[in-house]
């Protein structure tokens, strides 16, 4: 597949043509921060962003999504509809997370709601241009992706390389009248990659990510869990902003006519007090400490055991989002490495 080289102007007109032709979600400024939102004006795209507040998972597992509609007078019907869309400017670590979600939602039972959205998406990954204050993707194999994307954008100096990794990506670049990248451009890209692997390490994990399951295997009684949990609000912010957290709740909603309605799912989080509470108020994880530990085990042990990859990609969002400033995974894992 081909790699094209575009200058800023050419890139802009490419984005303009995308916006004119289809539904595009791209990174834009929201206050002093950034968020993915529908892009209607190409000039609002901010590929120089550091990190978005919510990861792009919201397009595959929306905050609230109808699963089915029903009529009490009879029958259920699946709700599966989404228009094709382009997701523009996904950082490599978020793309790694999306691929993990793919594995989760396919494993054992294929979730066609997730899959429909996933199939509808063309994902344009963009190499990080500005590191966020807490990113540590460089420690988690999340700084760079070398395959899987539909298109990869890399800024090299004043220009951009657009690399189509799939047929979908190829189609997206169709008609871009730009020259192919030359060998020295590709060398520049490798330099960007190497630089990002080194730069996206605002926190330094003192072991290989692959060692985490074993480390956690012997750390259940470590004092750090109780210590940190003391400051925890059980607010779930760390869950919600995490690109690999996917737990959800399911609820029914009835219409005013008392007949039709819908069953929907919405984001949930294992840090929330009642996440494991059953009828009769029995809570299987009653203590903050239990829930706090559970979350780190999910990232470092439980999910890895399911899909073979550490389920933290190093985006650093939880560190920023935690009001209590206690949700830094690197700090926790390093503490465990130190022993007691």
């Amino acid at each position: 597949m081909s790699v094209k080289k575009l200058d800023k102007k050419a890139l802009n007109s490419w984005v303009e043509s995308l916006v004119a032709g289809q539904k595009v979600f791209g990174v834009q400024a929201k206050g002093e921060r950034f968020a993915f939102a529908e892009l209607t004006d190409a000039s609002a795209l901010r590929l120089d962003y550091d990190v978005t507040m919510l990861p792009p998972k919201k397009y595959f597992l929306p905050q609230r999504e109808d699963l089915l509609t029903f009529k009490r007078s009879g029958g259920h019907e699946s709700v599966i509809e989404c228009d094709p869309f382009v997701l523009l400017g996904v950082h490599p670590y978020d793309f790694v997370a999306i691929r993990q979600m793919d594995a989760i939602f396919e494993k054992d039972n294929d979730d066609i709601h997730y899959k429909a959205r996933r199939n509808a998406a063309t994902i344009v990954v963009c190499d990080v241009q500005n590191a966020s204050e807490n990113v540590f993707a460089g420690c988690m194999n999340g700084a760079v992706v070398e395959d899987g994307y539909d298109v990869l954008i890399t800024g090299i100096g004043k220009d951009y390389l657009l690399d189509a990794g799939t047929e979908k990506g190829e189609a997206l670049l169709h008609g871009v009248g730009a020259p192919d990248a030359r060998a020295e451009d590709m060398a520049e890209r490798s330099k960007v990659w190497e630089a990002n692997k080194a730069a996206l390490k605002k926190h330094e994990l003192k072991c290989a990510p692959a060692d985490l399951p074993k480390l956690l295997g012997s750390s259940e009684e470590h004092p750090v869990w109780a210590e940190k949990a003391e400051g925890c609000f059980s607010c779930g912010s760390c869950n919600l902003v995490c690109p690999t957290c996917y737990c959800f709740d399911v609820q029914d909603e009835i219409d005013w006519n008392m007949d039709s309605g819908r069953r929907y799912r919405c984001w949930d989080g294992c840090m929330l007090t009642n996440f494991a509470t059953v009828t009769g108020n029995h809570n299987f994880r009653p203590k903050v400490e239990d829930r706090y530990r559970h979350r780190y085990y999910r990232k470092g042990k439980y999910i890895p055991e399911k899909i073979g990859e550490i389920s933290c990609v190093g985006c650093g969002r939880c560190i920023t989002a935690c009001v209590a400033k206690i949700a830094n995974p690197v700090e926790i894992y390093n503490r465990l490495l130190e022993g007691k």
Partner: protein
Amino acid sequence: MSKPRVAIFDFACCEGCQLQIVNLEEEIIDLVTLVDVVEWREAMSEQSEEYDIAIIEGSITRPQDEERLKEIRERAKILIALGACAVTGGINKLKNNFDLEDVKKCVYGKDAAMPHLDTAMTKAVGEVVKVDFVVPGCPINRAEFAVIVRSLALGKTPVLPTYPVCVECKMRENGCRFEYDEICLGPITRAGCDAPCPSAGHWCYGCRGYVDDPNVNAAKDILEKYGKTIDDLKSKMLLFNSKQEPTL
């Protein structure tokens, strides 16, 4: 099946919560199709009305209001407290932090002794009679109200979120108010409002009351990290969650 008969009453409040019912726009027609609204404030004769559900807006600030509320309770199978004034006493309870004589003088000066200006400690509805369901918020979230009404009509117990406002705040992609050098009560306040305040750049003042087990200890430590004091926080907590007795 006959339609549930609903009556709406208000006590001391801004009536903003009733307004949210009106603001359901087209849906209000659905509402009155689903239930029979047999009384909405004092407009209908006070006696002889029977109702299945009484919705109470406002706080109780005078002895005569307490009596009236008890009568309503007797005639209602289900009693719902609507909005912060009814649920927690809301803003009206700020008054409880002062001496009542002083409060009257402050507003009415030399006329403060006139009998019709009398007032008592503010109470939430639940401090006077048994409340079956609450719709918290100042004002209530009209979508949440609609969901609660529909659930009840279906015979399903509505459940309020047990998690704090931060959840909804995160879902709406806001920068945290603490980062803007403000004290936000979001981490200890019960969600369900969809975090309108932080989403519009305002700190949460806790109008929905607290989650079941607010970690105020954590709040203390955090305040230090953000260069604030526990007094700053406590003061904010008084706004919508003052107690029956002076809290200061």
